[in-house]
């Protein structure tokens, strides 16, 4: 399913859910889409926060690079990230997987 995302109401340093499984964040480096479920304990990353270039889970503070999904623990899976196609200055599109 294709999701269209209007980011005009997404200020820098904020995260917002865009579907039951995906959220978007705007950091100083741009807009990123990633899975809502934290690979550590399954907390909802849409309630996380932006810290510099990172997105952090509010529950246990696990940091992620929202561009790659990488996090610092080898024992945990990286965060699933979703490529965004930019359609306009504040309009993006992504393909939500059918799962």
């Amino acid at each position, binding site marked *: 399913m294709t999701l269209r995302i209007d980011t005009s109401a997404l200020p820098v340093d904020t995260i917002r859910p865009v579907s039951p499984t995906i959220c978007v964040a705007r950091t100083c480096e741009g807009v990123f889409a990633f899975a809502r479920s934290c690979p550590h*304990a399954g907390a909802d990353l849409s309630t996380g926060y932006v810290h510099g270039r990172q997105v952090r889970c509010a529950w246990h503070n696990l940091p992620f690079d929202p561009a790659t999904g990488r996090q610092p623990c080898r024992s945990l899976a990286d965060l699933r990230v979703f490529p965004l196609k930019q359609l306009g200055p504040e309009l993006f599109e992504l393909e939500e997987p059918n799962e």
Partner: protein
Amino acid sequence: MAELTPAYLGSSTQPVDLSLDEVEDGRIAVVQGALERLGVLEEIRCAALEAISVLSSATIAQAVQEHGFERIHDLVPPAAVRDLLRLLALAFSPLAVPIVSLLAKTLRTPSDELFVAQQAWVRIMMPEDILALNRPMFDGQLGHAVAHNPHRDPWFSQSIDTINAWAAIGPVSHGNSVLVYPDVWRQPMERAGQTVAPGQPLGVPVSFEMAPGDVLFFSGEHVHSSEINVTTKTRFVMSFRLTIRPPRPGEGRSEAEFHRVAL
């Protein structure tokens, strides 16, 4: 990290100006060097080394002394770390009341009495990747060896309005600290059992850099959790609990008896 920075009070040369009723009312503060000034830090560190010697070997205890408690995960076998948690809790629980009483005498209190839990909570959080290799050994050790989800203390076993005295025995840093969520202080929260229900905004948590002997004071009514240990260092902490008025039971079975202490 958070815009709200905790109050750091009292280096070894400065008087401590912290009132426990402010802490009950939500203030978060680190009293620097508190255990060292009381002469308690060395006692705890020596007891921990002795316990490591008994549970593993004198050579390993010597290595921990040399390299620091933050290297426990490199030096002490995981089974001994698990037993260390239990052994130190047994050893220091009888000393909780005298230790907290001494600590409280260095602070301002609203009356001449306190109520102190006769229990020491020992917390040895190894780096997450090390913990993951030994996870079954630490099952159920939430907040002691395994990261605890956000919660308020009275939701499971503690008195309402309990104050936590969270004492660094080894160094604590961002990346292996406790997390406190001041943005939701006294806010109604939906629960899932004994922790915060998923999906609720918690704001930006505060974490703490602490040297051995520093003591963090915060109310158990603050939503708090464990920071996943993404550092290469083990975080070794002992915590104590007290109330400034007669304890009122929270939910569940109380983990510890509170003793009235005249100051």
